[in-house]
């Protein structure tokens, strides 16, 4: 080791320690969160509450994966919902037609999603902002119209009916409501932890650099196209897991899962919770689902109510809720240090 390298290792040591420390902290938080969520059925028999958490898991995975694109890389995808639908349909079809164990279907669905995301991503990530948004949207509509028109395979506008078989594996029986609940929570927590690791890795910081200044990143020797494509595929995988949770929950798959409004809701969730913090989309998911459930109870025109709330956030607050809170805290801290 030369003197220079030794010096560099010494200088980097605190950074590495800091990152390792943060990783331990993240894992600890994840474990606590999982313990709290998983023990919930012990305290409450409310099926509605558990159902709500399962839906939050499905949408939360989807929305957080979208944040990898929107918040971290600056890729405003308006077609991310296609991978949600793709996950639900691939999983459902594999389980219905092939009758393989659930883990096999899970991995196979991820493989299919990765393949399709790589093809679509290779075409899309070259495009800039609004083009990227709309071409991803166009692909979403393509997948949606394929699902609708290929009725003999996908069930058309009726969706995948007849239920998805859920054979037990490793002692986990997903047709049992509590087992399904705990599995969804585990998938959510593991997914969030994995995405957190991606976001905090050197690759994650590369993505932030691309977002802030793609030209500079390119000058520094980063293959921008490849980095964008990688995160596009990674995000698609997590969205697909969200779709699978949803398919398991409703025991089927419906064309609405692949419709563009899912993408619109995903973007809105990110906006609602905030894109500058990792957990923003998760907060947004809970808020949106609560809002949706409350509004649909009172009126059939929930589009109007949702639209007005979106306008309030987009034109009024101009940022998400967690962004707002985070900024408020940092302003307080700055004021405190200034004194």
């Amino acid at each position: 080791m030369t003197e220079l390298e030794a010096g560099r290792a010494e200088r980097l040591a605190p950074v590495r320690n800091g990152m390792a420390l943060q990783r331990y902290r993240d894992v600890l938080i994840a474990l606590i969160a999982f313990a709290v969520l998983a023990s919930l059925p012990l305290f409450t028999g409310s099926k509605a509450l558990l159902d709500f958490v399962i839906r939050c898991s499905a949408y939360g995975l989807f929305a957080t994966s979208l944040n990898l694109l929107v918040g971290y890389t600056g890729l405003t995808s308006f077609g991310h919902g296609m991978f949600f639908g793709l996950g639900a349909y691939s999983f459902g079809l594999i389980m219905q037609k092939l009758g393989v164990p659930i883990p096999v279907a899970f991995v196979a669905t991820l493989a299919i999603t990765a393949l399709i995301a790589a093809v679509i991503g290779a075409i899309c990530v070259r495009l800039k902002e609004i083009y990227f948004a709309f071409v991803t949207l166009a692909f979403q509509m393509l997948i949606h119209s394929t699902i609708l028109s290929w009725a003999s395979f996908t069930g058309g506008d009726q969706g995948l009916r007849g239920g998805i078989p859920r054979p037990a594996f490793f002692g986990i029986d997903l047709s049992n409501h509590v087992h399904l609940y705990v599995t969804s929570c585990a998938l959510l927590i593991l997914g969030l932890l994995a995405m957190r690791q991606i976001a905090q890795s050197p690759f994650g910081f590369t993505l932030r650099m691309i977002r802030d200044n793609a030209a500079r990143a390119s000058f520094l020797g980063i293959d921008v196209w490849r980095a964008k494509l990688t995160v596009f595929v990674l995000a698609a995988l997590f969205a697909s897991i969200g779709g699978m949770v949803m398919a398991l929950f409703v025991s089927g798959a419906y064309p609405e899962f692949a419709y563009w409004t899912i993408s619109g809701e995903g973007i809105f969730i990110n906006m609602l919770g905030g894109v500058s913090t990792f957990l923003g989309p998760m907060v947004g998911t809970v808020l949106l689902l609560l809002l949706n459930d409350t509004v649909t109870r009172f009126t059939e025109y929930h589009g109007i109510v949702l639209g007005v709330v979106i306008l309030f956030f987009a034109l009024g607050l101009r940022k998400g809720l967690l962004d707002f809170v985070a900024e408020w805290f940092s302003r307080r801290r700055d004021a405190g240090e200034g004194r």
Partner: protein
Amino acid sequence: MDLDALAGCLSSSACLVTQTTSGLIIGMLLFLVAVGLTLIFGVLKVVNFSHGAFYMFGAYFAMTAYQLTGSFALAMLAGAAGTAILGLIFERVFMSRVYGADVLMQLLVCYAFVLIFDDVVRIIWGPEFRSMGMPAAFQVMPLFIAGGVVPPYYLLLIGVALIAAIVLGIGLTRSRIGKVIRAAAHNPGMVSALGINTGLIYGGVFALGGMLAGLAGALAAPVRSLTPGMGFSVLIESFIVTVIGGMGSILGALIGALLLGLIRSFGSLGFPLFTEGLMYLFMVIVLVSKPTGLFGKEAA
């Protein structure tokens, strides 16, 4: 897949004429919507994600005006003028607040209005399919051109859209207002420094774009069924048109729309299940070979 039907049609002049005219009317309607979209993008630098709603409102306005007055001309006027006013209000009150903001923000504001407008239509006109019906003046014998059946209304539709295209093209390149608009698209700061009210221009361009979409909706009302949410598929298709033709190019929008219309009408014969897929496939081919679109000038 039914390639025999496609080959059979291509070899018969009657079928060829019928399919070409139906392709042309799809294309012309798409052009009117897409040209508004491309105009708004060119000048205001925002993509009006709620553009489909103007098409929808145009159709509903026309239907209501026709049912009240029984006059087809008044129905067209109501569709166009109503959406123009709507566009002006929408731009001045809401869109003008998000210029220069994140694309995300612009998409969200429009997304909110897609939801709101669809529900407003549902409240006013009901959720079920409605139809305006063909005006009596056009309930005449169809024309026969080379053995193919062409309803006279189709000719009117194509004619109106063509006139709109020509007026727009000449107006933008030759007239003073057109020059001011193009200058504002290029350098709004300089234009406003020269004493021109750019806010008015922005509002005007948005109203014009909304009016063209509304006119398309009004023209489509007698031949299509009306339903809340009818604007969205039109929006996606017209965006495909602008991507194929090149964002900001009127000629590109015209060529792209006609190509897409023909793909739809002939594709429905050869690939009945994959007609929409054909459009996306075509878009992908254009994007991969020429990312700026057929008539796009600078890097997109």
